[in-house]
């Protein structure tokens, strides 16, 4: 039975997933949250994640991969510990989003969708994150940073840098 099964997830996450599949009329509805929460813990959607999630939902691994490739928050490679996502969509663009992206790129010494050699930061240009009235905005992992300037951005990056070296 389920209790005997080995899992690649922490006991907390495994317990959460055990409950998640019972919430819906159809088990497969748990797929997207499960993948995203697994990614949060593992860092990316690895082959092992795909295999266990497919097993838990009771669908083919191919079906899982098919879903993974559609959603832009899901990734199949590791990113930095702090994933800096700079919005350059219209509202942010009007308030300096492109300059902010450029600044982050210079400051971190990496381009779009790249990771620093120490693995602390990665950078990604993203589409609208729903912070238009507080533009320009950046999301680091799931945390929002809004009304930014290049100076404020430096502060944000410094704080994460300090956190990483703790």
């Amino acid at each position, binding site marked *: 039975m389920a209790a005997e099964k080995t899992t690649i997830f922490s006991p907390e996450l495994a317990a959460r997933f055990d409950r998640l599949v019972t*919430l*819906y*009329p*159809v088990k*497969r*509805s*748990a*797929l*997207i*949250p499960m*993948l*995203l929460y697994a990614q949060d813990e593992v860092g990316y959607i690895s082959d092992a994640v795909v295999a266990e999630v497919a097993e838990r*939902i009771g669908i083919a691994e191919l079906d899982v991969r*098919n*879903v993974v490739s*559609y*959603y*832009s*928050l*899901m990734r199949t490679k590791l990113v930095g510990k702090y994933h800096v996502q700079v919005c*350059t*969509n*219209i*509202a942010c*663009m*009007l*308030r300096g989003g*492109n*300059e902010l*992206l*450029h600044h982050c*790129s210079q400051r971190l010494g990496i*381009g*779009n*969708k790249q990771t620093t050699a120490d693995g602390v930061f990665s950078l990604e*240009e993203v*589409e*609208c*994150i*729903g*912070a*238009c*009235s*507080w*533009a320009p905005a950046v*999301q680091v992992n*799931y*945390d*929002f940073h*809004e009304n930014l300037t290049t100076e404020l951005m430096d502060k944000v990056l410094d704080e994460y840098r300090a956190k990483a070296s703790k």
Partner: protein
Amino acid sequence: MAYLTTHPDVVPVVSYRFGKGAVDIDRYIELEGYSSVRKCLEMEPDAIINEMKTSGLRGRGGAGFPTGMKWSFVPKQSAKPKYVLVNGDESEPGTCKDRLIFEYDPHSVIEGTMIAGLAIGAKMGFIYLRGEYRYLINIMEKAVAAAYAKGFLGKGIFGSQHDFDVVVQTGAGAYEVGEESALMESLEGKRGVPRIKPPFPAVVGLYGGPTVINNAETLASVPHIFRIGAAEYAKLGTERNGGTRLFCISGHVEKPGVYELPMGYNLKKMIYEVAGGILGGKKLKAVVPGGSSVPVLLPDEIDIGMDFDQVAKAGSMLGSGGVVVLDESVCMVEFALRTIKFYRHESCGWCIPCREGTDWLQKSLTRLHMGGAVDKDINNIQYIAENMLGRTFCPLGDAAAMPTIGFVKKFRKEFEDHLNGKGCPYHPAADYELATV
């Protein structure tokens, strides 16, 4: 942190509890929370729907469909269970309002969902939030757990014969999932590809059951309609456009922000008085009045009331309430390119006019912006966009085409100025643009 901005003209209805600690369920109850659903428990479903019709509430997601009428389309009898879906996949560029509701008044979303459930005879609701809003998912999950703990959700809600369950669901980054049938696909654990309609969700929706799907602000407005009275709510707005809505003002204004204003509020006044005018005293060039998918308005076209009908009459759409203001420094080709880049990225790829059309538009606009465009590129852009209109299963194709047509039509001279072989004459393609194409 997201926050509501105040102004003397603000009429707080859906934002009535913002900043009053209503995330806490007891505080929410003190502020007349869960009183509307109790009222509705005493009412016949038809009476609830009639009240909704009286309120004049129209969908706050973008299409502006009358909410009461939408609910009335759900068949009374159904062999399959019915569902209520909350569309909190807020992703239309220029829109950042639902965020505030989830952050400051999560229980109003739950209560609105329950009322919709009573009206259509559903026993289950799903609150779907975009994946980027993780902190809000946490807030919503806590709110739902608190409502279960009080017996407001689950079996026999408020001691009645009615059962109602609510599940909070996370998205994972896909604009297309904001389309109602694509959201259902996503909720069923699939790629967010839209479904062919008809059948419409009211008849065949989630898991094949009749489904009502409404924007988060729409459903959060519902308890307030029963709190202040449908007729009173209707009176706050204009004819056939009841109530208030959260307008998200962004771009080149002195005081960008989310403001709750009556439906029909004058756009010019909104920009120059509420939002403090154009940033740095510059000249206004254009306004995108309802999120990035609507046609642009010129400065002499903005003396209009912001309701669905008046903005449509002016040749644009009220859309999602995202008002993006552009000053004289903006290059319209660059702006059009950034707009289309988004839709190209978000096209699910199912319908060829959208998949190929957005790609061609991006390529043509890039040529104009970077240099190397030829005369016929401008007409081609218009031709491609016009041929996308109405030729896709979901509105994403239109959402990409409509603003593009508007940009070319209203700023043709600027497009022509890009035919010098060198690209943008205003903002030479900057070297900071990281190649992502």
